[in-house]
């Protein structure tokens, strides 16, 4: 009966079945199935597709966040970066470029630079990541006062519009973008030396340094990536809402952290995978959608939301002991 467990393939299958990412996927599937029976319209293809599209935004923000968290840091400026991206893009639309690509690239360059500045503060000034990125978020608020509402014209960017609304082959463009980003992220995380360095830095920065890991440049890269993916999320969310506004990024700070942790990545760094973050993000939007359709007072809805997260957390497992 248990013979298959002894084979190499069987063992590998077992490891996968027992892994956190798989568990999270299983939970998402479970919630979807349960919800489609209890809540009308929940399980329809269109709805699930919409949920995944929403999760794409969280997933993009959480991609950078996963890098940062695995490397032993945290990025509290992602929400502000998403907003900056969504609000500044219309300001940058050139008439000269009919595709709108230039503006998007310019905005991504801006947000990546913001991330790199975070990295500089953490790596060179040795400011605690939480303080550095919180301060960055504060700066960006100041910046937003200056730039927000600065454009009296709604700049239509074709690329952004396409990202937010198109459905090539029935799949939302945002989801396609997320898939592409996920592939790159997973490859960078688990199949390159760069990825291996992240895990080492997160688990024991001192030992990583003494083993020759270029900690400063890797830190820089990690926060740069976080700035980039947050910027990308900003572009997507702008497309989905047609109009950027101040506060558009606000929901994504806690959501990105929650997706990372629900996916089994240790908030202390050094352990985890983006493969868990992906279902983590879907799980979050699923619960939010579920709560929305429940007819209850705001207080009860909030309690239900918290209890669901807590309950699922109980299912999806415990933190590994360390030290």
């Amino acid at each position, binding site marked *: 009966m248990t013979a298959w467990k002894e084979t190499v393939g069987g063992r590998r299958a077992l490891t996968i079945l027992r892994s956190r990412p798989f568990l999270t996927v299983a939970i998402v599937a479970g919630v979807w199935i349960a919800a489609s029976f209890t809540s009308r319209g929940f399980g329809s293809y269109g709805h699930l597709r919409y949920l995944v599209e929403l999760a794409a935004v969280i997933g993009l923000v959480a991609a950078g966040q996963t890098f940062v968290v695995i490397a032993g840091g945290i990025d509290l400026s992602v929400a502000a970066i998403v907003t900056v991206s969504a609000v500044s893009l219309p300001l940058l639309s050139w008439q000269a470029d009919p595709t709108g690509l230039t503006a998007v690239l310019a905005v991504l360059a801006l947000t990546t630079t913001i991330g790199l500045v975070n990295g500089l503060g953490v790596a060179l000034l040795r400011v605690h990541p939480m303080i550095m990125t919180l301060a960055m978020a504060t700066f960006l608020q100041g910046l937003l006062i200056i730039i927000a509402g600065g454009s009296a014209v709604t700049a239509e960017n074709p690329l952004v519009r396409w990202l937010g609304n198109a459905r090539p082959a029935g799949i939302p463009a945002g989801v396609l973008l997320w898939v592409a980003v996920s592939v790159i992220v997973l490859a960078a995380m688990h199949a390159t030396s760069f990825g291996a360095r992240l895990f080492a830095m997160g688990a024991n920065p001192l030992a990583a340094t003494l083993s020759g890991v270029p900690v400063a440049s890797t830190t820089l890269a990690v926060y740069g990536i976080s700035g980039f993916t947050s910027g990308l999320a900003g572009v997507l969310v702008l497309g989905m809402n047609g109009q950027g506004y101040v506060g558009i990024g606000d929901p994504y700070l806690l959501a990105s952290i929650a997706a990372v942790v629900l996916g089994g990545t240790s908030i202390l760094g050094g352990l985890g995978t983006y493969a868990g973050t992906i279902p983590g993000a879907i799980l979050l939007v699923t619960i939010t959608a579920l709560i929305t359709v429940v007819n209850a007072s705001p207080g009860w809805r909030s309690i239900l*939301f918290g209890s669901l997260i807590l309950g699922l957390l109980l299912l999806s497992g*415990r933190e590994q002991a360390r030290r």
Partner: protein
Amino acid sequence: MSVVDPSRQAGALYWPVQLRRNVGVRGLFAVVMAFLVAYGFLFPGLLTASGFAKFTQSWFPLALVAMAQAILMLTGGISLAIGAMVSLGAVIAATTMTGPLGVAGGAAAVTLTGVGIGAATGFIVVKLRLPAIVVTLAGSFIIGGAALLILPRPGGAIPEWLSDLLAGNTPAAFVLLVLIVLLWKLYLATPLGLSLYAAGENPVGAYRSGVPVDGARIAAYAISGLLCTGAGLFVAAQTGSGDPVIGTAFTLNSIAAAVLGGIGFLGGQGTMRGALAGSLLLSLMISVMFFLGFTPVAQYVAQGLIIIGAVAIPQFRKVQQ
């Protein structure tokens, strides 16, 4: 064995230990002092009784939540439910104190809620070994929801005399803070106290040394809960009413204050005095920037720079040495 006169030793350990704990926060203390002096210079009224009273009142709740966060971070935990707990404390105070329970009953309800929810959170985190950050994130929704059930919109009331006592022109907030710091000192001297550090930094070693690691951590959550709802009670007294979302901003601010004060994430790093100094800096900053006449944009930029500077400059000096 060595011949030591015990009376000569009295205080010869405690104070040096305390002094060494200052080492890590000296830079921050200097920054905070500079801000205090600047504040006093910009607003001489600070040195009057009522000026001082008002100033400590605006700092007090932040100081409490900074302590609440710091005590958790010392054990290697963290809470994202700080703000919701403050709100809950405030609405409980505002709905009970003018009712049949009275002030004493209301205060008891606030205390029990804080300790109870704190201990329950601690139990879930410690005994079920779930990551504190998500447990408390979930907790923040549950607790915030409860606050909304108790008081769906701002309202309620606190007896006028209590408001005047705690947040009138009296230095009550300051006296309370001194009292709480003394209590903290006492707590550190109990068997559970220093265990916080050991349980946070080196739980395995602490366990092998006979330290009640789990107990120390759960107790920390309970105390943290109490500090939060206590802060809520104070906010209710200060505002004379309850508001189910009044505490929201305290979550991030408490973390900022604690980290600014040198409390580390991995547990066992930092001191409570640092966290208090961090909260004082955050609070002072707001008033000082006001008196310097900063525009909102300048406020945001300066706030970011001050926070980074307060951490980076002492760091930088350490590296230079």
